[in-house]
Structures are given as structure tokens and as C-alpha cells.
């Protein structure tokens, strides 16, 4: 876990900025990993279960974007 601890020499400004950056990284990763899974043929319920969110939530957040990106989402 040592690698995930905030650098002890960093002050609160760095720690809080790290929180912002990690949120942004998580958002970016969610977009690209959901896209990767759907391109690999995963279903919405599978992706939802893997992310520990509801099927409705993951569909609402990503369906329109994936269709625009040219991912075939029929029969998922």
C-alpha cells in the first residue's frame, strides 16, 4: 500500500490536488475501460456488476457516447 500513500513531504494543498487528479483519472479510466469492455462484447449487466453500479446507471452514463464512438450495442 506504500505507493498509494500521499507523499509525507507534501502539504494539504498537494494532498487535495491529488484527490482532484485521482477523480479525473478515475473518470477517464471509466470511459475508456467501459468502451474497451463493450467493444470486447461484454453486456451492460456484466459491466455494471464489475463496476458495482446499476445497469441503468452505467447505461445512462455511457450508451450515447459509445454509440457516437461507433460501438455496436445491439442485444446487450
Amino acid at each position, binding site marked *: 500500500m506504500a505507493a*498509494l500513500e500521499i507523499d509525507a513531504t507534501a502539504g494539504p494543498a498537494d494532498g487535495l*490536488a491529488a484527490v482532484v487528479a485521482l477523480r479525473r483519472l478515475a473518470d477517464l479510466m471509466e470511459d475508456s475501460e467501459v468502451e474497451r469492455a463493450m467493444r470486447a462484447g461484454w453486456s451492460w449487466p456484466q459491466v455494471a456488476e464489475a463496476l458495482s453500479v446499476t445497469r441503468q446507471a452505467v447505461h445512462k452514463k455511457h450508451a450515447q457516447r459509445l454509440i*457516437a464512438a461507433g460501438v455496436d450495442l445491439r442485444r446487450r
Partner: protein
Amino acid sequence: MVTRLAPDARSLIATAEREARTTRSPYVEAEHLLLAMSAAPSTDAGQVLASVGLNHEAVEQALELEFEASLAAAGVTVRGDGPVRAGPGPTRRLRLSASFKAALERSVAASSGSRQIRPAHLLLGVLGAQAGTVPRALRLAGVDQAELATLTRQALAG
């Protein structure tokens, strides 16, 4: 408030939303307004930014550096060409972040006594932030935030 926006200031806000979309952010943040201004050299704000070397590429680099430095504080490293750079962002209208709204409020306050809110007022609003991404990115770019605000006020006065 909306009716007092000068046309070029209004257009900067629209550009900020496009910048947010391009960087795949779910919110329009203060830094997207800074990116928009740095890409508008015909505006007073863009000229002030250019005078300290902050063109669009320089602001992009500063923000990227800030992102990487902040992640590094948590022990996380991201490769520049990593999988996080996927296809297009959301097509829906983006929401405005707290940092963007705070910058706008400060811009309105800075423009009191002026007929319209000009791009330089927007820049003053962005530069009024005490903490967060913009102050950190400016520091990493070697830009003195207070001095930049002074230059902006001078541009408005001149």
C-alpha cells in the same frame, strides 16, 4: 448578468465548454476558461496571457504537468499515451463546476462600474482563485499569478 457579457466574452464561455469536452471532463472548470482565453489572442485577456508566454499550448502543458504532479503526490504515474485517452467525450450539455461558477462571480464583481463584462474581467475572475488547479498550473508554468492579475487590471485600465 448574461446580458452584460460582451460578445467576445460570451464566445469564450462557449469555447470553454468545447475545451472541457475535448479534455473529456464532465464539468466545465475554471481551467477550461483559461484554455479558451489562451486560444483567443484577439481578446484583451488573450493578449495579457500571451505577454507572459501563455499561449494555448503552454496552458495545455501546464495543466498536464499539474495533473501528473498531483497524481505523483499520491504515488500514481500515468503514461502520456496510456489507455485513458479514448474516443470522443459526452455529447450532452456539460455542467458547470464550482470553480467555473466562482470565477464567473468574481468576473461580475470585477466588472462593476464597467458597461460590459469583457474577456479581461473573465481572466481576473479566473485569477482570483486562491487554491485549486489553475493556481497550481500557473505556478508550475513559472507564472506569478498576482503579477498576471496586475497586468490584466492594467490592460482594462489602458
